[in-house]
């Protein structure tokens, strides 16, 4: 159990955050630029002045960063230029503390899919490649609490998914606690168990990711999204697609890009869905799911539909005019057409 109780005067506001997490939990920290996200991580790790941080009932507030049993990967965390990629990873293995989780080099390399980068020089890596190696190096330090500050900002969504999946895997199987700062709600919703929202240094929300991310979306009027869990991916190479079945359902989806080593979970943007009352046979849309309208929310420029697809929830955003034209009520069966997945 990690207990955080921070009250720290910063230049423009007071950072005031209290929360606690069990070991092996992923906490996502969300907030606008300058909300104090990085300062929060610095205070927890001990890089900035001592604050009340308790790990397993032991007060670690007065310990130096290297004695706290945690690693903070700063937003600008460079690779060491006098070593190559493998050298950087071996450096972490060689100089890590004794009482760590002994995560092996081979295991980490295959988990993150970076074996093809090992013999490269640091200067020849792209921004995204560097971030993957930096993350691997942080993992190899073997601490049981890892703090990450915007670790995957230079990666595209497909590559990001694999690393987010790795975080989930490590939290579950190696019991590592992660506290991850990001300004991407989608990224945090994908992997975090708990979410913390910061505004001007104040913790405005803390709780289960699903609830908090929904609230933030409503508040900010940003694009809503939802996740669908699936199983049994089968590659259809002649069509360059992967066919998957939804969990506890007979319905199938065809996915464009799929990495074997990522969660069996797909993110669908609410405005990438259109709905109809009847199943259209002659349509170019290959992904159509039968669902039930559970509820809806009228907002200023959109109507948000909460759909149930064989037990999983799906969010769809419609223009008020389209909603009027559709003329449906809750409990009715609809067909959701998923574009761009």
């Amino acid at each position, binding site marked *: 159990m990690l207990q955080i109780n921070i009250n720290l005067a910063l230049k423009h506001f007071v950072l005031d955050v209290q929360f606690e997490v069990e070991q092996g939990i992923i906490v996502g920290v969300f907030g606008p630029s300058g909300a104090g996200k990085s300062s929060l991580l*610095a205070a927890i*790790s001990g*890089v900035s002045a001592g604050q009340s941080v308790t790990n397993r009932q032991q007060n670690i507030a007065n310990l130096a*960063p*290297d004695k*706290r049993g*945690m*690693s*903070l*990967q*700063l937003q*600008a*965390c*460079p690779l*060491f*230029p*006098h*070593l*190559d990629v493998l050298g950087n990873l071996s*450096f972490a293995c060689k*100089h890590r*503390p004794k009482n760590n989780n002994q995560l092996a080099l081979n295991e980490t390399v295959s988990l993150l899919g970076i074996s093809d980068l090992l013999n490269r*020089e*640091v*200067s*020849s890596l792209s921004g995204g490649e560097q971030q993957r190696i930096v993350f691997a*190096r*942080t993992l190899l*330090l073997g*601490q049981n609490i890892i703090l990450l500050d915007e670790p995957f900002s230079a990666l595209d969504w497909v590559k990001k998914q694999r690393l987010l999946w790795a975080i989930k895997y490590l939290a579950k199987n190696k019991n590592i606690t992660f506290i991850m700062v990001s300004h991407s709600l989608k990224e945090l919703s994908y992997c975090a168990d708990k979410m913390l929202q910061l505004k001007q240094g104040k913790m405005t929300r803390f709780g289960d990711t699903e609830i908090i991310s929904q609230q933030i979306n409503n508040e900010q009027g940003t694009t809503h999204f939802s996740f669908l869990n699936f199983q049994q991916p089968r590659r259809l190479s002649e069509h360059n697609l992967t066919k998957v079945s939804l969990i506890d359902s007979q319905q199938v989806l065809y996915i464009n890009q799929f990495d074997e080593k990522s969660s069996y979970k797909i993110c669908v943007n609410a405005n990438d869905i259109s709905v109809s009352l009847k199943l259209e046979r002659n349509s170019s849309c290959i992904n159509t799911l039968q669902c039930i309208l559970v509820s809806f929310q009228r907002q200023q420029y959109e109507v948000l539909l909460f759909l149930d697809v064989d037990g999983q929830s799906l969010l769809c955003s419609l223009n008020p005019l389209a909603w009027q034209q559709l003329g449906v009520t809750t409990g009715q069966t609809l067909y959701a057409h998923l574009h761009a997945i």
Partner: protein
Amino acid sequence: MLETDFTALLLTVKLAIITSVLLVIICFPIAWLLANYKGRFKPYFEAIIALPLVLPPTLLGFYLLVAFSPNTLLGEVWHNLTGHQLAFSFSGIILGSLIYSLPFVMQPLLVGFNQVNSQYNNAAIALGFSTSKRFFFLLIPLLKSTILSAFSLGFAHTLGEFGLVLMIGGNIPGETQVVSIALYDHVEALNYQAAHELSLILFAISFICLVLLFKFNRSNLGFRGKNASN
């Protein structure tokens, strides 16, 4: 080339090597401490280190000469330990050179530490590497070329030393007569041929030193790969 010139040249190179090696050893930890020190006395420390840059060598020489006298604590301790006096000895001009060339070795090291601190050291602190691991396995390898350029700058600067050595060392062949003083002697004696020869040699050595210095500086920090060979 005259035999006395050759002796002076050897003495100068010996003086420059000893001075710059000692300075790198002394300055490296001090530069590290100073780069990490954020207190209000920082400008004072920096000013003390930079003073030899602006003070006339004769001023430094005068006070060193006073300090070397057997009546002072330094002079007395040295005399009791070695049986010799510091003034007009090779050890004396080494001590003088250490002070005279200090800023030339310290400045590149300070710049190097500041650069490494902001880019790499802070990231390594956050990741949880201990102080000793960072110092020995990260800072020293990263600052390899900075150390080499600090050394060559100290070396090249000591080669050209004149006023300070003349004041505290005098002009004793084989003991304190360095190349610049030998050159001065030739000009005084109107022996222009010997002065030209010695100048040429001094010119060549200094030029090579500076070429090496700029070459090290080009491969900033201990970068591997493409950047290093550029």
